[in-house]
C-alpha cells in the first residue's frame, strides 16, 4: 500500500500523467480534418465497421473509411443521440433495433447534420462482416435507402468449441480479398493494387498493435497504472481510426511510456486501487464520465477488459499481422475480433484475464442494442459466481440511447457489489 499513499498527490500532478488522452484527442481531430480534406479532393468514401476490418486495404487505394459506429459514439458522447434515434424511429425502426444503426441512418436522413459536424455520405459500403449480424442488416438498409453499392467480405464465425480455426475459413476470406475485393476496389478507386504499399501499411499496423498490446498488458501491474476499460476506450480510437501509419505507432509508444511513468510515480486513474476488476461489455457513451464515476468512487480500476479489443484481439496473440503475407494475415486478423468468438471462447478469455490480471471481480455491462455482445452475459456471470467463486455483477443500459440509462438503479447495484467485495477483501470503506 506504499504506492497508494504516494498516489495521494494533488490532481494537478495526475494531469502530467494523463497526456496520452489529449494526444489521442488531437489525432482524432486530425483524422477528421484529413478525412474532410480528402473528400474535398475527390476521394471516395467507404463506410466501414470497426470490428475486424482490413482498413489497410482501403488505405492502399486511398479510399477514405468512415466509421458510423465511431461517429455514433462520438455524437452520443456529446449528447446528440436522441434526435437521430427519433428520426430513425419515426422512419419506422423499432425501439428494439440497435442504437448505432438508428443513429447512423438517422444522421443520413437528416442530411448528415449532427452535433459533431457533417457526416459524409458513403460511395461504397464495405461489409467486412465480423461478429455482428446486425452489420449486414445495417448496410442492407443503406443499400435500399440510398442505392449505395456494397463490397462484401464474408467472415465466418470462430465457431469451433475446441479452438480450431478451420482452414477453409482462412482460405475463403483470403480468396475473397484477392479475387473479389481487390478488383472491386481497383474499379471503384481507379487505382491499381500496389502490394508493396500494402506491405508497408501492414508493417505500421503490426507495430501499432504491438505497442497497444504492451500498454494493455500493463494492467497486470499492481497497482495498475491504467484503467484498461474506461481509459482504454479513449486510447483505442487510434488503433481503430489510423492504424497502418507511423503516427499510430508513435502514439502507442508514448502511451506505454506514460503508463510506465505512472507506475514508477505510483499514480493511477483513481486515488487508490482498492479493487481490481475485469470489465466485459460495451460502455455507456451518453453518460460515459458519470458511469465511470460510479466505479471511481469505490477506487476500482479495470485491469483488463474486452471491449477495447473489438477491433482485434491483440493482447492474447490471437493474430499476428505479417508484412510478408499481408493478405493472408489480414484474413486471420478479421476472424479474431472479440464478438466473432463463440461464447465458450469468450468465457475462457475472461477467465484468463481474471487470473493473469489478479482481479477481484468481474463487471458485465449488457446493452439491449448489441445482442452480439450481450447474449450470453447471464452465463458468463453464472460461470464466475458459481463455478469459480469470483464475484460478478451484471448491469444493463445502452451504449448510445440515453433512454435506457437509469443511474439510481445502476448505482444501487454497483454499490451493493462493492459492499460485497469489501467484505470479501476486508477493505475498509
Amino acid at each position, binding site marked *: 500500500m506504499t504506492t497508494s499513499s504516494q498516489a495521494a498527490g494533488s490532481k494537478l500532478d495526475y494531469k502530467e500523467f494523463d497526456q496520452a488522452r489529449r494526444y489521442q484527442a488531437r489525432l482524432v481531430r486530425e483524422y477528421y480534418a484529413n478525412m474532410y480534406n480528402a473528400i474535398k479532393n475527390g476521394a471516395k468514401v467507404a463506410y466501414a465497421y470497426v470490428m475486424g476490418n482490413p482498413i489497410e486495404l482501403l488505405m492502399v487505394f486511398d479510399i477514405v473509411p468512415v466509421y458510423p459506429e465511431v461517429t455514433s459514439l462520438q455524437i452520443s458522447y456529446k449528447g446528440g443521440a436522441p434526435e437521430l434515434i427519433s428520426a430513425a424511429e419515426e*422512419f*419506422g*425502426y*423499432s425501439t*428494439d*433495433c*440497435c442504437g448505432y*444503426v438508428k443513429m447512423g441512418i438517422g444522421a443520413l436522413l437528416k442530411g448528415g447534420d449532427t452535433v459533431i459536424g457533417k457526416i459524409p455520405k458513403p460511395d461504397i459500403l464495405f*461489409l467486412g*462482416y465480423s461478429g*455482428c*449480424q*446486425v452489420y*449486414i*442488416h*445495417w448496410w*442492407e*438498409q443503406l443499400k*435500399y*435507402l440510398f442505392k449505395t453499392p*456494397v463490397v*462484401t*467480405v*464474408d467472415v*465466418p*464465425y470462430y*465457431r469451433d*468449441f475446441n479452438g480450431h480455426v*478451420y482452414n*477453409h*475459413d482462412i482460405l*475463403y476470406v483470403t*480468396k*475473397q480479398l484477392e*479475387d*473479389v475485393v481487390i478488383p472491386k476496389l481497383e474499379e471503384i478507386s481507379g487505382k491499381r493494387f500496389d502490394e508493396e504499399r500494402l506491405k508497408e501499411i501492414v508493417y505500421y499496423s503490426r507495430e501499432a498493435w504491438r505497442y497497444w498490446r504492451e500498454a494493455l498488458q500493463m494492467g497486470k501491474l499492481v497497482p495498475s497504472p491504467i484503467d484498461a476499460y474506461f481509459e482504454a476506450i479513449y486510447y483505442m480510437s487510434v488503433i481503430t481510426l489510423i492504424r497502418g501509419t507511423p503516427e499510430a505507432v508513435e502514439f502507442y509508444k508514448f502511451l506505454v511510456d506514460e503508463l510506465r511513468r505512472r507506475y514508477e510515480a505510483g499514480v493511477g486513474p483513481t486515488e487508490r486501487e482498492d479493487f481490481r476488476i475485469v470489465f466485459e461489455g460495451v460502455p455507456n457513451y451518453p453518460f460515459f464520465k458519470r458511469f465511470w464515476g460510479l466505479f471511481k468512487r469505490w477506487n476500482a480500476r479495470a485491469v483488463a477488459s474486452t471491449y477495447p479489443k473489438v477491433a482485434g484481439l491483440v493482447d492474447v496473440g490471437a493474430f499476428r499481422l505479417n508484412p510478408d503475407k499481408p493478405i493472408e494475415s489480414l484474413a486471420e486478423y478479421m476472424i479474431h475480433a472479440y464478438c466473432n468468438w*463463440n*461464447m*465458450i*471462447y*469468450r*468465457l475462457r478469455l475472461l477467465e484468463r484475464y481474471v487470473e493473469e490480471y489478479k482481479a477481484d471481480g468481474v463487471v458485465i455491462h*449488457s446493452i*439491449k442494442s*448489441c*445482442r*452480439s455482445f*450481450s*447474449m*450470453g*452475459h*447471464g*452465463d458468463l456471470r*453464472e*460461470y464466475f459466481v458459481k463455478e469459480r467463486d469470483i464475484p460478478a455483477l451484471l448491469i*444493463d443500459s445502452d451504449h448510445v440511447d440515453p433512454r435506457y440509462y437509469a443511474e439510481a438503479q445502476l448505482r444501487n447495484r454497483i454499490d451493493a457489489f462493492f459492499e460485497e467485495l469489501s467484505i470479501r477483501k476486508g477493505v475498509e470503506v
Partner: protein
Amino acid sequence: MSRVSAQLSSLEIFRQWYEDSFTEFKLVSEWKDVNAGYALGYFPVYFPVEIPYSFNALPVALYGAEGRINLDIAIAHTQSFVCTICKSVFQLGAEDRLKAFDVLAFSNICDVARNLSGIMKRNLVDKEIVYLHFPIHNDTPLAIKYLVDEYKRLIDVLENVTGIKYDEERLRDSIKQFNEKRRLVKRLMKIRREKPWLIPFTEFYVVVKAGSVMPVEMFNKLVSKYLREVGSRRVRPADRLRILIKGNFCEQPPLMYMKTIEDAGAYIIEDESLIGQYWIGEVDLDGDPLVSLAKAYVENPSPLTVRFHPSIDKQEYIKREIRDKKIEGALFLSPKFCEPSLYDYVIYKKALDDIHFPYLHLEYEETTSSFEHLRTMVETFVESIMFD
C-alpha cells in the same frame, strides 16, 4: 406405428406429430427405436435436412415451445431483451427435453441464435453441437465452394455420431424425398392461394409443422392422402381480405394468434411462418449432391431475411408477390426483439409506401396469451380496406 396410423385420418396423424413437436418429441424417440436411427434438432430458419436424413438421422426443426413450458431456467440465463424462441429452446435443453437429439445445429441467422450455440454447449456439455456458417457473399462462386466445405464438416460430425459413412447415393435419395415434400407443400400453398376457404390457415399450419418433424416418406404419403380429402370438401367462400404476412420466419406466433387474424376477416394467402420448410425449392439431382445443395442455397432467387444476398431486390420481390397473388393488404409480424424481422420490415414498408399499398405492423411472442389488441388492430385494418 403404422398399425395405429391406419385407423386415424391423415389430419389426426399430423396433429399427433404437431403436438409432439413442441416439448415432447416422444414420436421422435419412437422413430429412433424402431429404425435404430438418430435425430438432429436444428434451430430455424433453414437447414440442409437432406444431409442428416441420409445418415438415418431424423431432422427436426426446433420452433420453440409456444408457451407450453415455464421459462424460469431460461430467464435465469438470458436478459429480458432476448427473443422468446431462444429462451424456450434453451429451456427445453436445460430441462433435458432434447435428449432425443444426438446433434443440435445452429447457424448464423442472428446474433442471439449464434451466441445461443455456445451457451447450449456450456450447459449441455456432452451434447454434440454444430454451428454452420451459411455464406453471405452469395454473389461469388466462392460461396458455393465454401458452403460445400461447411457441409463436409457437418458430414464429419454425422459420421462420428452415427458411425455411418457418407454415401453420395443415399444423399441423392434423401434429396429426392425432400424435393417431393417441398412440391407437396407448394401444392397446399397453391390451394390456399386459389381457394383459401378450403384449408383454414391453422390446419395448413399444423400439416406443415408436422412435416418439420415427421419422417419425410410418411409425410409425403399422408399429404397425398390429405390432398384428396381436401379436394372433396364443400366450403362456402367468405368475403375476406387476402393478406400477405412477413416477418414470422423464426419464432412462431401461437396458433391462436394466426386464427385471430383470419377470424378478424382475413385470409392468410402467404406467410413466412414455416418458410424454412420449403424455401430451398427443388434441389438438382444431377452431379455432386453437396454442390447441388449448396447451389440451391446460394443461388436461390427468393429472399430470406436471414440470408444476405447482395444482388436480390426484396422491394421488387414484394411488389411482384402482391401483384401475382392478388394480395389486398400486408401484415408485418415481428417477434418481440427480433432484429432481422424489424430491419426487413422497413425495407418492405418503404416499397409499399411507394405504391400506396396498405400494411400494418404488429409484435408478438410465442407465449402471447392475449389477442384482443390484435383482433382490434386487424379488424380495423380490414374495415379500413373493405368499407368506405
